[in-house]
């Protein structure tokens, strides 16, 4: 116990400031800025791997590390689409995940946002379209923001999420500073 406390005290707080939003990632504006501002106060995210190689998942995990400290921004991942405001979808959509992705989208209450992640989510990537792959996420469900990269860095993912939720810059008040 003493070692644990000593470790916590010696490391201190390592969280960094969140990045600014990036309008170039936005694909469409389905919700008014007013709704997004409300949604953006304490948004809940449901991640769906629709066929990813698991590279994007590694960087999504990083969002929860103490440096990016996603929860410190009031954003958290939830276990059910029914609790979610935003779907974070990775991968080219495999044929086998098509039904699961559609159902997850339908189970998410309105108003909702979708962020497609990674080169595969944006374009189908190297996997493209085939007998087993439907390619980009927007081929299956509507997408609001698309974040390219293979895999996109946590900073880019965070930019995508923040861009989807709001056009305003997160302020220091959002972080409780």
């Amino acid at each position, binding site marked *: 116990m003493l070692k644990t406390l000593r470790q916590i005290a010696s490391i201190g707080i390592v969280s960094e400031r969140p990045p600014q939003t990036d309008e170039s990632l936005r694909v469409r504006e389905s919700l008014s800025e007013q709704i997004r501002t409300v949604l953006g106060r304490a948004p809940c995210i449901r991640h769906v791997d629709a066929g990813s190689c*698991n*590279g994007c998942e590694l960087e999504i995990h990083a969002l929860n590390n103490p440096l990016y400290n996603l929860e410190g921004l009031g954003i958290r991942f939830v276990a059910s689409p029914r609790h979610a405001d935003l779907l974070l979808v990775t991968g080219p959509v495999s044929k086998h995940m098509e039904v699961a992705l559609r159902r997850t989208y339908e189970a998410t209450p309105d108003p909702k946002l979708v962020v497609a992640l990674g080169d595969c989510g944006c374009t189908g990537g190297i996997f493209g379209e085939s007998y*087993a792959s439907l390619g980009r996420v927007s081929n299956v469900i509507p997408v609001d923001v698309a974040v390219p990269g293979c895999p996109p860095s946590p900073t880019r993912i965070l930019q995508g999420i923040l861009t989807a939720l709001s056009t305003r810059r997160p302020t220091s008040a959002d972080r409780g500073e």
Partner: protein
Amino acid sequence: MGVGEWLSSSEALPGAPGVRRVRVPLEQWRSVALDVAGASGRLAALWASGDALGGSAVHAVFLVERAALVVSSSWTDSAYPGLEDLFPAAARMQRATADLSGVYSTGADVRPWLRHAAWPQTYQPLIDPPLPPSSMAATPESYGFVRVEGDGVHEIGVGPVHAGTIEPGHFRFSVVGEKVLRLEERLGYVHKGVEQRFTRLPILEGHRLAARVSGDSAVAFSWAYCQALEGSSDVQIPPRAAWLRALYLETERVANHLGDLGALGNDAGFAFGLAQFSRLKERLLRASEATLGARYLMDAIVPGGTRLDLTAGDARELSQCVREIANEAHTLREIYDEHAGLRDRFNGAGRVSVELATRLGVTGLAGRASGQAFDLRLDLPCDPYVQIALSKMGRVEGDVAARVAVRFDELQESCRLIREIAGALPAGGHSTAVGSPPAGSLGLGLIEGWRGPVLVALEAGPGGSIRRCHPHDPSWQNWPAVEHAIIDNIVPDFPLINKSFNLSYSGHDL
């Protein structure tokens, strides 16, 4: 005949060291497997190849007596003899050859494995020409899960979409109260046609797809692919390139172990572990970006060598970073070892005994926690591992605690290796030119990834094309072990037990 005789009648194959191939008629297919099983050999992979003109073949790779023995048999239309009684992991691989190539075994389990009725059974993706997704409608399916019956038995179905940020797959638990009687896995949800996609890529660009078979093993797969390709093209990569690749591979291993150790602490209710290890992992990824050019080394390995070189200054910086990470991990290990809550959750959970692991052919990291000491870096080493001293890791308890301990041990050893490699990089170029291999040549790459042995079989087509490429992730061998590990444990321990294996869905589903 014994294994020695099959080896002596075999020919050398290009690619990884110690790869031999023997072609046998289908009648002898099982005889070879019997001899390998008798000599305590291991099944590394099984796949089928063929084309629309006929001429299908079935291939298996066995690891035995410091050699990798490829056995190939031509297949016409009668079922080939199944190997699932000798090597249980073969069962799912055989079902996959039926789904993708229409090459059937005599195995009793004829349920589809990678095909979920998203395309018709008559369409054989690796034989027939590619078709667009719109040409085939997904049809409803029912999969024949094994039912457990009796007083108080009920089923819990989980997935494919899980509650956390993990890959999709379906788990069907049959439970009484909280105790698990049986778990049946249903995988294949992230099947995205990787093997067919390979045949549409020029052979000199296939390494990019190989790196994305399983993103967490990008280095292992792209190295194995390039090893097969370079061998087939008769190219020797510069020594510096081999050392740089090993540096990448060990960095990948450390990054994954850091991530898993944090997640394992978290799954046992110790959020401190996740915060600390994910901080260390982020530190390594940033050092990797600063010195090796990327956080994740998806495109670091290219045919002929590596995409980038490493300056002496960057090598020192990376060395310093892993030295500090190793020191901090040492402190965290003491905290994990002394934590009563973690010990309670880790010890005895999800046990795979040595006997069971031997029987199932459990491999890689999970195998080393259950007395299976095999490690390609020691037992079938390629450059530069032939020149580097490496300690053999292993435990025999086979529980979550053992898999955690193996990760801690390997983390320290790989940090040491990174420093050793970074300090002894041979001078010279980091890449050389590679041409397309002759049509029909088969090369085999074998690399010990962080999860276990990664295999890539690469058959060249005419004009720089790929005729067939089969990537094989060790998860194929270890997924069945998870079904056994959970028996008699409680349902809430499944996430912990599953994470202690941390198997790939994408690498398995292809």
